[in-house]
């Protein structure tokens, strides 16, 4: 699987994370006013050259006044570069310039309705219709082949696709945003029609969330459909992994860190809004069950014993496990914190998701919990004898890892320990994940022992690494660090 970062502005290069991405998509799909400047294109190309990334230019839907601008950008590209086309108007020019055309999302006809996700599709015929697209037609496939198009971009539509593609045609899957419609009446969000005034757009794309009560079943009036309007785009979020991808020839996953309009539009990525994840999914998240992590509890006992033998920390060497003050980072619904408290530990849980903390409080109304960001914790230096992180670290954007490490180290008392439970790198896993979300429904960035050691060196040293099979086919690695500073 080739992993792609798709951005439309250079600022969003901050979402680039070394090993994770193999290719950069640069450019916007739906608004000609967001075409990059030639200078920005050069900078993006240079960035790719520096980091060994492949490059694709993404071009938007175009009216006549913007056609020349897009053509001029394409002329800057070396022959053989990919161009993702969202307007048929550039196809001939792309071929003439020796570029490799890709069928963009805007050119693929398929139903992308946010209501489909919550609908009970009783009619088999209708469900089958929804899972079809232009790619099911021999004539359309022949048309693509004749014009040198050997890749098509797919939205992660909730109904999936019934596809049996020929071997020459490959597909990419975009996540987490599924585009539903494009309008040029951006005024609903912005209050005027600046985008249509004089060939330039002075507006910054706003973001409007629409929650509608659309009966998936007769008489049901709950708000069961959510979609968004940002600038010219109407879209929804689908961060679920497709169930079945046989016949899609899927070999590329395209991640969009923010809605694909302007760089000013807020992100709706699930990992940037954990509260929404809990609110939307309730307990239907992989880690939403009640069972504590027994491996973690066992290691905790070991950690406590180890901690009590730290010669450099005589003041704490006599502390028993029940005297330890422990911070549970990203405690979620408190399944581990409750178990740790049952062992007599003084555990404080923190989480970014208020909805998760509400679940925790339902289980233990007296439990000390705090709504806080792991990167900026409201505790003084050396406040804790131990820090537990079960599944929080690997959900952090990798660019934030250094901030995380600094903050955790600030909180650890000399001689204290840190226990991290995280996924490994995808390549180290027993089987390659079918697409972007790996085995879970949310993106995670795996980590290895070398990286973690380097991150916490020199103050924390890695004491133990243990792989453990989790529920189902999941596999986690437990890393135990010890603070080696003297008090």
């Amino acid at each position, binding site marked *: 699987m080739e992993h792609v970062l798709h951005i439309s502005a250079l600022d969003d290069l901050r979402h680039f994370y070394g090993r994770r991405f193999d290719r950069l998509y640069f450019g916007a799909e739906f608004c000609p006013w967001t075409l990059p400047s030639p200078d920005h294109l050069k900078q993006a190309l240079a960035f790719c050259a520096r980091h060994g990334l492949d490059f694709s230019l993404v071009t938007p*839907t*175009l*009216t*006549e*006044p913007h*056609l020349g601008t897009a053509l001029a950008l394409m002329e800057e590209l070396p022959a053989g570069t990919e161009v993702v086309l969202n*307007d*048929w*108007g*550039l196809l*001939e020019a792309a071929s003439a310039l020796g570029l490799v055309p890709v069928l963009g999302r*805007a050119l693929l*006809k*398929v*139903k*992308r*309705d946010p*209501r*489909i996700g919550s*609908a009970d599709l009783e*009619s088999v015929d*209708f469900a089958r*219709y*929804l899972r*079809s*697209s*232009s790619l*099911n*037609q*021999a*004539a*359309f496939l*022949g*048309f693509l082949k004749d014009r040198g198009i050997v890749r098509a971009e797919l939205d992660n539509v909730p109904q999936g696709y019934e596809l049996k593609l020929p071997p020459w045609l490959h597909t990419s899957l975009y996540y987490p945003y599924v*585009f*539903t*419609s*494009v*309008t040029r*009446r951006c*005024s*609903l*969000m912005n209050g005027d*029609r600046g985008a249509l*005034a004089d060939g330039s757009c002075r507006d910054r*794309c*706003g*973001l*409007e*969330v*629409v*929650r*509608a*009560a*659309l009966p998936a079943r007769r008489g049901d009036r709950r*708000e069961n459909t959510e979609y968004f309007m940002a600038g010219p785009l*109407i879209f929804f979020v689908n961060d679920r992994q497709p169930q079945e991808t046989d016949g899609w020839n899927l070999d590329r996953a395209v991640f969009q860190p923010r809605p694909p309009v302007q760089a*000013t539009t807020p992100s709706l990525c699930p990992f940037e*809004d954990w*509260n929404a994840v809990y609110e939307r999914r309730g307990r239907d998240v992989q880690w939403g069950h009640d069972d504590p992590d027994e491996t973690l509890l066992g290691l905790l006992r070991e950690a406590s014993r180890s901690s009590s033998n730290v010669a450099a920390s005589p003041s704490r060497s006599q502390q028993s496990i029940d005297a330890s003050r422990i911070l549970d980072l990203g405690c979620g619904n408190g399944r581990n914190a409750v178990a740790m408290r049952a062992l007599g530990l003084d555990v404080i849980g923190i989480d970014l998701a208020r909805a998760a903390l509400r679940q925790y409080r339902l289980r233990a109304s007296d439990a000390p919990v705090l709504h806080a960001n792991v990167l900026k914790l409201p505790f003084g230096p050396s406040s804790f004898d131990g820090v537990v992180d079960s599944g929080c670290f690997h959900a952090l954007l990798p660019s934030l890892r250094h901030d995380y490490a600094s903050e955790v180290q600030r909180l650890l008392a000399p001689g204290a320990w840190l226990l991290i439970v995280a996924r490994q790198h995808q390549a180290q896993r027993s089987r390659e994940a079918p697409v972007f979300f790996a085995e879970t429904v949310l993106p995670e960035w795996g980590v290895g022992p070398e990286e973690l050691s380097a991150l916490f060196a020199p103050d924390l040293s890695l004491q133990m690494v243990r792989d453990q099979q989790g529920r189902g086919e999941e596999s986690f690695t437990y890393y135990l660090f010890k603070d080696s500073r003297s008090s």
Partner: protein
Amino acid sequence: MTLLFTINAPLSRAVEVEPLVAAGADSFYAGIFPSERIGELPMIINRRNHPENNFRSVAEFRAALAISHRLKRDLFVAFNEHFYPPEALSLILELLEELLGEPGLTGVIVTDIGLLIELGRRYPQLVLVASTGCVIQNSGAASLFTELGVKRAVLPRSMTLNEIHLLVQARPDMSFECFVLNDRCPNVDGLCHFVHADFTERRFPTQCRFVRLANTHSLGPDSPRHSPRRASPLSDGDFSRFFGSEPHACGACYLPILIRAGVGNMKIVGRDRSLDEKERAVRFLAEARTFLMDCLAPHGDAGSEQVARSRLDSLDFRAFQKRVKALRRSLYAGACSPDLCYYPEPPWPPSRRASHVSSRSRTK
């Protein structure tokens, strides 16, 4: 004789042909969803899927063809859903085979590239019209569809007058058609992937209907997440600004600019409308055309169309607009507003727009 532009009227019953011709229609477009074949044909046969928007039987469509042919009017049939699965494609080709056996069918309005290719291969003489769903917004796209056999393109509702002008001037070999009157959907049809299945799957009505039920929260570029400044059903003002104030959108007072750009066909939206409403719309456009001819070539002598075209640049645009707006008021209730206009781009009122286009215009 057609003057300056054709009025392309919506049709859904054979009995509508004669009164609409009498009102001034030059050509027709229609859909067909024969009740005898419901179940066989695809769920969504065209972009106006409800049976009321379509001819309900092949026999009635044939009757309409015969009348329009006798009255020397073109009739186009729309199979313009975005795509058809293979089995649906076969059924549509079979149905077209039947219809093309009769004289009078001028052409087919299509979005699906697969269907375009099949039609071009089987019926090289057939006029292929690229539906608005093809999103032909620039000369490059126009070239590609010309290669596929398309002779005429229906332009997206979202295009500005200036964009239309530049495109049409760049492709003088192609015929273009613009929407006027009635529903003015804010979404770019060919880029809109909401399910339009009001009839076959009632849980999937068009967006403009279900958004009325919605609560909206603005998260704006500067607003913190989950700090809505509004959390309420879409206000009437927002709805009107976004969707237009249905059902009487317009655009008629920009006819001279569209004609000067080279647009030769005006398409009246509204296959779902009653005959009375269709007649009113056709009459409105026909009278607007008469006004325009009065302004440009008042004597109506031989060659008057050529004279009229040559005088478009010197037209008193404000006076023409004033007359058209007065006519509109006499036919439709309610005042003119940008929310009703197909061409609402600022500046508004449009006097500066007219001069802007004029400065860039090239004589056809």
